[in-house]
């Protein structure tokens, strides 16, 4: 049984704002299913008393002092933007959601 359906992929694509064709949906569903199957093998090795691990290093409380450091010059910040206006990033009209 596949663990990810074509509908799941369509849903994720929409959340990720990716335009995916019907043909791609079929292909990605198959590929992602293989990926998930491979990752699921970890579950075979894990035993009940091993907590899920999110970090590979045994560190906690890595913090920085509350000190201001220089920001980037604004020209440099906006240089990589597809469009800028009045010192701000310019983006297309935001659709489908109220403010």
């Amino acid at each position, binding site marked *: 049984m596949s663990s990810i359906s074509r509908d799941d992929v369509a849903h994720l694509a929409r959340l990720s704002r990716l335009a995916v064709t019907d043909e791609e949906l079929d292909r990605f569903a198959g590929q992602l299913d293989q990926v998930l199957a491979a990752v699921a093998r970890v579950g075979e090795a894990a035993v009940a008393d091993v907590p899920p691990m999110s970090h590979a290093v045994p560190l906690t409380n890595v913090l920085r002092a*509350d000190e201001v450091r220089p920001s980037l010059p604004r020209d440099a910040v906006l240089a990589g933007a597809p469009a800028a206006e009045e010192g701000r990033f310019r983006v297309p009209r935001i659709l489908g959601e109220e403010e």
Partner: protein
Amino acid sequence: MTTMTTGDRLVDYDEVLTRYEPVIGLETHVELGTASKMFCGCATTFGAEPNTHTCPVCLGMPGSLPVANAAAVEATIRIGLALGCRIASWSRFARKNYFYPDIPKGFQTSQYDEPLCVAGHLDVEVDGREYRVEIERVHLEEDTGKNLHVGGSTGRIHGADHSLIDFNRAGIPLVEIVTRPVPGAGAKAPEVARAYVTELREIVQALGASDVRMEQGSLRCDVNISLNPIGALELGTRTETKNVNSLRSVERAVRFEMRRQAAVLDGGGRVVQETRHFHEDTGTTSSGRSKEEATDYRYFPEPDLVPLAPDADWIEQLRAALPELPAARRARLQQEWGISGTEMTWLANAGALGLVEQTVAAGASPGDARKWWLGDLARRANEAGTELAELPITPAQVAELSGLIAEGTINDKLARQVLDGVLAGQGGPAQVVAAQGLAVLGESDELVAAVEAAIAGAPDVVAKVQSGKVQALGALVGAVMKTTRGKADAGTVKRMLEERVLSS
């Protein structure tokens, strides 16, 4: 009875309560007052030129790595402690994934199932009754950028042609405080919601964790409301009204949603679980995006930030350093000043508590300090449409004014003229007294002359007084006060008259 406003049917407020029990819940975001952002060293100063406080971390550039701000973590723990929360011994950040132009990384770094603080409570008082608001969690996250919608007529998203984004605010530490559902407030639900936000704001302010200015957005509220039909077993569906940005609006939003939802339910309809927007101008809410669409945030632990594991020593150190909290302070001052709970509530509601406390500290009696701030000064603030604290007079100056009366330099009438001078920027009370010659006359030549002139001008009155009608002396006092244009001290004048009229 139902009425129509802005397209929504509304049930009269009192009638809502005959059929439904309101349940409120509040999610409050507080922007912390740290110098630098949550995960980078960019400054957090309000009002800077757009995009001048940004760097690879807060712009979400590939390869940049966040490091958590120690002061923000401590401020969050302190807020949790002040709210009686348990501080988690293990806590992680998580990515909350969604696309929106004001969020440069494609996710907000937040906390999900492992928040820093859980299970606290805050007691608030409304009309002499105490309500307990249970706190579910207090967690740490980061703020988003700011959108400016261009091309529409109103600056709103509808009809806009494009949007402009400023990321100065993106990455500023944000603490979210979430209550559990609060049932049982009944008709007082709007006031309880407001009292909760008011008290929370005072606590955060007392902790020095934020400037909590609602008008600048450093404290923002989302208000959840549902109605349970009285006697029914099923729970009502809640709506979430976003960005309610003043204390008064919190109250109005709850009231409006109660009336709107009651009309929907009365009509046999279902309340839709959705996000709603509050409109400050009309006091109404309108439908936003539906919740089902937006909740698929695919949270997962943030791999770039290691877990937080505050140990007991650190927590106890923070607990020991907590300042006196507002409720304890009110109780202490109430006792020190010997006033009633109602008087204390007036003082607190007028925003005069700190001012009175400082005035007393500067030497005034509690009674005098209260009299000035709640009397003349409150009236003048009201007339000027401003807050007491914004008046151009300091507690030390009020204490000085009060001292000038106590020592007899001025009387109450003159004090009001002195107040005018101080508020007009003419200097401190003593300076105004000196500059305008407002001091009451002592036993000066001028006063002696006025007293003797009054005696000489009314031999009939003098005769009456000497024949035993001592109260007739009042007419002579009045005459002296008139000649000196109120600058004499009535007690002194009376004594001087008695000396001259009765001893002869």
